[in-house]
C-alpha cells in the first residue's frame, strides 16, 4: 500500500489544478450560507409565532439542534447529492481519457492501491466540504448553546454519507472514459436509487394495503440514505446506520476494483 499516498496526493492536487473543485466548493459554501440563513430565519419566525400564541410548552421544546442545525444539515445532504457527482466524475474516467490508465496498469502497483488512493483523495475533499459546512453550526455556539454531541453526530452523518457518495461516484467513473456520463450515472444512483425510489416506495406502499411492515418497505428504508441520515441527525449514532455507510462504501469500492481490473480481461 506504499503507493496509496502518492496516488491520493496527486489526485487531490489535480482537483485543485482544475476549476471543478473551486466551482463546487464555492457553490457549496454559497448554498451552505443560504440554507443556514434560511434555517435561522425559519427558527426565528417559529420562536416569534409561538411567543405570540403564548405557547410556552412548544416554545420550551424548540431547540437549536432539532429545529435549526438539523434542517440545515438535511439541506446540505441534499446539495451533496448534486455536488459529489461533479467531484468524482473524473476519478477514473480522466485516467482513461489521458491514457494514463496505461501508466498505472503497467506500474508496479496493485489495483487496490489505485482504487483506495483515489477514494482517500475523494474522502479528503469530502472532509473539506464537511468542514466548510461545519463553520455555520459553529457560529451558533458563539450566540447560543446547541448540544455538542448532537451537532457532531449530524456532521459525522454528513461526512459518512459523503464518503459513500465518493465510493459510488468513483465506481461510475471507472465504467467510462466520458466524465459527463460518469456524472449522470452517479446522479442517477444517488438521487433515484438512493433517495427518490425508496421514498416513493415507502410512502406509496405504506399507505397501500401492503402496510408499513412489508419487507419491501424495510428493504427500501435500508437502501435509501434518508432514514440513516435522519436518525444520526437526531444524535443517535447506531451500529445499523454506521453499518449502512460502511457496507455501501465497501460494496462500491469492491465493484470499482473489479471494473478497473477488467481492462485486463479484454
Amino acid at each position, binding site marked *: 500500500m506504499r503507493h496509496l499516498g502518492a496516488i491520493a496526493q*496527486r489526485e487531490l492536487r489535480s482537483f485543485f489544478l482544475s476549476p471543478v473543485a473551486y466551482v463546487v466548493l464555492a457553490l457549496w459554501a454559497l448554498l451552505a450560507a443560504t440554507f443556514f440563513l434560511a434555517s435561522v430565519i425559519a427558527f426565528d419566525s417559529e420562536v416569534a409565532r409561538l411567543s405570540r400564541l403564548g405557547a410556552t410548552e412548544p416554545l420550551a421544546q424548540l431547540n437549536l439542534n432539532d429545529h435549526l442545525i438539523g434542517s440545515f444539515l438535511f439541506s446540505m445532504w441534499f446539495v451533496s447529492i448534486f455536488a459529489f457527482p461533479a467531484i468524482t466524475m473524473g476519478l477514473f474516467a480522466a485516467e482513461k481519457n489521458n491514457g494514463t490508465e496505461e501508466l*498505472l496498469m503497467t506500474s508496479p502497483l496493485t489495483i487496490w492501491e489505485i482504487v483506495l488512493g483515489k477514494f482517500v483523495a475523494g474522502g479528503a475533499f469530502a472532509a473539506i466540504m464537511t468542514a466548510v459546512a461545519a463553520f455555520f453550526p459553529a457560529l451558533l455556539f458563539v450566540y447560543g448553546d446547541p448540544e455538542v454531541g448532537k451537532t457532531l453526530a449530524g456532521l459525522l452523518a454528513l461526512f459518512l454519507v459523503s464518503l459513500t457518495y465518493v465510493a459510488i461516484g468513483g465506481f461510475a467513473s471507472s465504467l467510462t472514459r466520458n466524465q459527463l456520463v460518469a456524472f449522470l450515472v452517479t446522479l442517477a444512483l444517488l438521487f433515484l436509487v438512493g433517495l427518490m425510489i425508496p421514498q416513493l416506495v415507502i410512502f406509496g406502499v405504506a399507505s397501500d394495503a401492503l402496510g408499513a411492515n412489508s419487507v419491501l418497505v424495510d428493504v427500501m428504508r435500508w437502501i435509501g440514505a434518508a432514514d440513516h441520515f435522519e436518525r444520526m441527525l437526531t444524535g443517535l449514532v447506531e451500529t445499523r446506520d454506521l453499518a449502512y455507510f460502511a457496507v455501501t462504501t465497501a460494496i462500491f469500492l469492491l465493484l470499482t476494483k473489479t471494473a478497473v481490473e477488467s481492462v485486463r480481461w479484454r
Partner: protein
Amino acid sequence: MGGTAAGTLAIEASGLTKRYGEIVAVDDISFEVGQGEVVGFLGPNGAGKTTTIRMLTGFLPASDGNARIAGHDIFTEPLAARRGIGYLPETPPLYPEMTVESYVAYVASLKDVARAERKDAVARSLGRCGLLDVRQRVIRDLSKGFRQRVGLAQAIVHEPPVLVLDEPTVGLDPIQIREIRGLIADLAAPRDGGRRQTVLLSTHILPEVSAICSRVIMIHRGRKVIDQPLESLLAEQGSLEAVFGRVTSSDSLEPVGEVQ
C-alpha cells in the same frame, strides 16, 4: 532499480498469443532480446505490435504463452516484471494539468524509486531528455515534441533494465522527429562504464530502425516473419524498404524470409 543478474535476457517472449474471440491479434510470437540490445520491432499498422507490447508491459494478459522481463515472469512476478520496464505507450500517458517536474516525480514514486533518490533521479531524467528549462511548465502548454520528451523522461526515471517505446515519433513534425530520434539514440548509447540500455523500439518508420537498431524483428498479421541482425538482413535483402514491401505485399500467412 530492478537489478539484473549478468547473463539474464532482457526480454524473453515465448509463444505470446492474444485472441479476441475468433480474431487472433497476436499469434504465437517468440523472441529474445539480450541485455544492451537495441531491437527494432517492425510491422505495418495493425500487425499486432502494440498488442504484443501491451502483453510484455503487463497492460494486457496474454491468452497464451509467457514472457520474462529481466528474468521476471510476467504472470507469476508481475510487479517485479513491471518494475523492470520503462514504457512509453503510443499516446504518452500525461496529466495535462501537472508540471513536468511534478509529473516525473509522481511516476518515480509509482515505479518505486526510493524517496531519498527521487529528486536526483528526476533531475537526471529531465536532464537526459532536455527538459530542465521547462521543468516548471504545465504539460498542457507544451508542444507535441516536448510532450513526447516528457513521455520518455517518465519511461527512464527509474533506470529500468528494459525500455519499451511504442511508435515514439508518430504525429510529430520532421524537426521534432529528428530531435526525438536523436534523443532515443542518446538513451540507447553506452554510458557510465559501457553499460548499454536495452531498447525495444516499435515503429513502422524504416529509417528510424536503420538509424538506431542493431536487430530487427518484423511481424505481420500477428506473426513473427523476420528476426535477424540488421546488417545481415540488409546484406541479404538490400534495403529495409524491400523487406517491408515483400512482407506486406504477400497475402500468405507463412513466414517470409529466413527466420533465425
